[in-house]
């Protein structure tokens, strides 16, 4: 177990579109890749009892989250022939319309990249100890729950 390298996935605040663009650009030199799949989670302006969500404040049990993410990453690499996989999740405040999750998978042909991307998002939402606190425009809040 000491050999494993646990990657950090957490970013403070929103994930900037320029960061995503740069991440895509970096794959230009990886010419074995024939298909990329990208998922981006964006904070939605939900209306609850007449109040609108202004932002989500994310917190996590970081050590467990990173350990779990490592396991998921290993499972996914075992299951699909991927060339690479990148995952970033926000911590702290992310306003409506901003990006809070970025999952990026690449393979020689499109299908593994698409399936892996979808599976990573599903597992991340179900298994990682991360919590989102929805902050309304009037500064009241409620805790988000994944269904």
């Amino acid at each position: 177990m000491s050999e494993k390298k646990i990657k950090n996935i957490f970013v403070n605040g929103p994930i900037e579109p320029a960061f995503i663009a740069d991440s895509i650009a970096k794959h230009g030199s990886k010419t074995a890749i024939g298909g990329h799949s990208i998922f981006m989670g964006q904070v939605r302006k939900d209306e609850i009892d007449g109040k609108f969500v202004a932002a989500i404040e994310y917190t996590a049990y970081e050590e467990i989250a990173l350990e779990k993410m490592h396991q998921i990453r290993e499972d996914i690499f075992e299951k699909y022939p991927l060339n690479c996989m990148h995952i970033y999740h926000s911590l702290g405040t992310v306003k409506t319309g901003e990006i809070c999750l970025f999952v990026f998978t690449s393979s020689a042909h499109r299908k593994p990249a698409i399936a892996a991307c979808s599976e990573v998002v599903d597992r991340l939402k179900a298994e990682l100890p991360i919590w989102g606190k929805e902050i309304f425009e009037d500064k009241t809040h409620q805790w988000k729950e994944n269904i």
Partner: protein
Amino acid sequence: MEIEIISFGQITEFINNQKIEVDGIADTDAFKQYIEDRFPALKGIKYKLALNKNIIQQNTKIANQATIAIMPPFSGG
């Protein structure tokens, strides 16, 4: 024995991080009983425990100086 309690998400609103000195809490089932008695608000929430950074799936023995995290349902992504 000493147990360190840490809480997350909505549970932080009624259980602060704290160290408790207690006897007679041998396992995680006993801990649940203890914590729900002390914080009845917990009874209405589906929560999971992590003992020393491992998420608990079944009743597990607790040793002295354990850290127990109380975690409500996850909502990442």
